[in-house]
């Protein structure tokens, strides 16, 4: 647990955090853009996909983020237990 390893760990964490936020924004915009696709008459597939997809994708993203963060922490010997 040297100073260097803390710096490396934090750089990894910051990168992961930035990636998670970007993915979140992109996923939400993607689902919202599905709603009024041209030629989407009849069954509103876009709306159905977005209403379940946005919270579902956000949940998956957070669980993925938690796993990745744990991997980073373990690699630097900083896991909490």
């Amino acid at each position: 647990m040297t100073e260097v390893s803390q710096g490396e760990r934090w750089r990894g964490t910051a990168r992961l955090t930035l990636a998670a936020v970007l993915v979140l924004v992109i996923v939400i915009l993607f689902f919202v853009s599905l709603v009024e696709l041209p030629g989407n008459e009849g069954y509103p597939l876009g709306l159905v996909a977005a209403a379940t997809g946005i919270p579902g994708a956000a949940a998956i993203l957070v669980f993925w983020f938690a796993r990745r963060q744990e991997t980073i922490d373990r690699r630097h010997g900083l896991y909490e237990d």
Partner: protein
Amino acid sequence: MAGINEEARRLGKVYGLLVGAFALLVTVVAMLAQFGLPDPVIAVLVVMITIVTYAVIGVVSRTLSLAGFYLADRFVPAGFNGMVTAAAIFAAPFLGLAGTFFADRFLGLAIVAGLAGGYALLGVLVAPYYRKSGAVTLPDFFAVRFGNPLVRIVAVVILVAVSLPILASATAIASQVASLSLRLSPEFAAIAVLVVVLLTSLLGGMRATTFSGGAQAAVAILAILVPAMLVSVQEYRFPVPQITFGYALEEAARLAETPIGMLAGKALPITGLDGFNMFALALCLAAGIASMPQLVSRFGAAQGPGQARLTAGWALVVIGIVASTAPAIAAFVRLALLRDLVGVDLADLPQWVFDYGRAGMLSICGKAAVSAAAIGTACGAGTVVNGLVPEDIAIGADLVTLGFAEITGLPYVLSALIAAGAIAAALATAATALTTIAISVGNDFFGRLFARRASAGRRLIVTRLVLIATAAIAAWLAFRRPDDVFAYAMAAPSVAAAGFFPALVLGVFWKRTTFWGALVGMVAGAGTTAVYAILLHTETLAPMPVAGLTDLGISAPASAVFGVPLGFALTVVVSLVTRAPSLGRLEVADAIRRPNPDPILEDHAV
């Protein structure tokens, strides 16, 4: 970690049994209803039994320890904590989200995106660091990070400005739904709600809101999911309303070209929002959820930073259930209205039209729909002959959820179940907001500023006195000024976003952030947003248009669209012109970033 897993299994077993018992109760009541059990008795059985259960859980989980009262002993498993964290803001989405989807699918999606994005940001940017700081409340976090009592005082003021309207609005929602479903007088319903909220918070603080919140979340989930699934099976022989509602919308589009009107609801906005406002609303809601004091403080009950991240994930699963069922509820209601009201002889209108007309939640041809004769007078001779057209009808935004069972023709017991769910959601929200305010005033004002040497027992007494006083103020506001309360509660996430989000995020991710930067950013962000919302509500100011983006003007629920950038800008600028933080401060900032136990932060625990 073994301990927390064991605890999770134990809680799973107990709450599984509770949910099973509740499902059995509803089934038995439904069967008795077949033999002529009258509706009021059904409502009393289903609603009262759930409410009494929360009160009992609240009393059983009473505590005399500060760590129990303030932090639920920091030993709540992630799955359970996630459920409670979702329930902590359930009042508005449970009651209002289906209505917003009914009004405008993009508005509904904007709110879903804001909620989901907010919980994700909470888990990624805020929760683990808040938990690691060892803070007891959100103001405590700022005090730990920036090391100055002034920031604590400012944060408590903003916290009260955010949480009090939400508490009062949830109290008002709970008592209005209770009065409607149990046919109680409004005064009696308000008092009953106040008593239950006190029983689930006064004796056990966060420990009690955690354990009763779990039961409330379970009831709310069942109440929104089961009726929608039943309609889905009835209509499409497939029990997944999240998918079948597309067919309902398809059929509704064939039945009517013109839209059905709406009346504003209590919980969420439905009018005054154009495309830009919806986008801004989603952003404000996301930042607001990520910095909402009663949500952030729930992560203090997690066992550690890792559990805090998982808590946000589980909260998203629960939010997802409500968010994805809401558009289905809206679609089934739309279809049922078109089938059962449009073109039907006025004498054949179903009874619930007049019931909800009298309650002021349904109007036809611009007048409350109190009787077939009144509708005939309001609409004129043409309607008496041809029946109603869709644009004659205006349905209250909250009725889309509350009236779902009656409108779609489900048995009355499901109406009672939905009412029980709405009350559960509102009670969970109210109790969480109430304990957050009380603990913050009791810990941050009394314990940390005035009486630093006070014993744990005295702190607990003061916190409980604050809790009683806050509950009384909120109940008075909810009863006397419900319309003001609902309006400010809708703007509250924006105030939280502008006040806390920049300082929270920069405080963790930018070590150069100074105490002065955070302070100025918080005051300016929250100040402008709150003042703007107040000026809009009192109609001193018209909504400010933004050239090229919105002509309607920025609405109050989206008002942080100025405040958050202002907060970020001022925090950065003021931090750069003030003296760099001391080495000791930087060590604290580093310690907040590390996940493992830390001697630097040890002394901040209760």
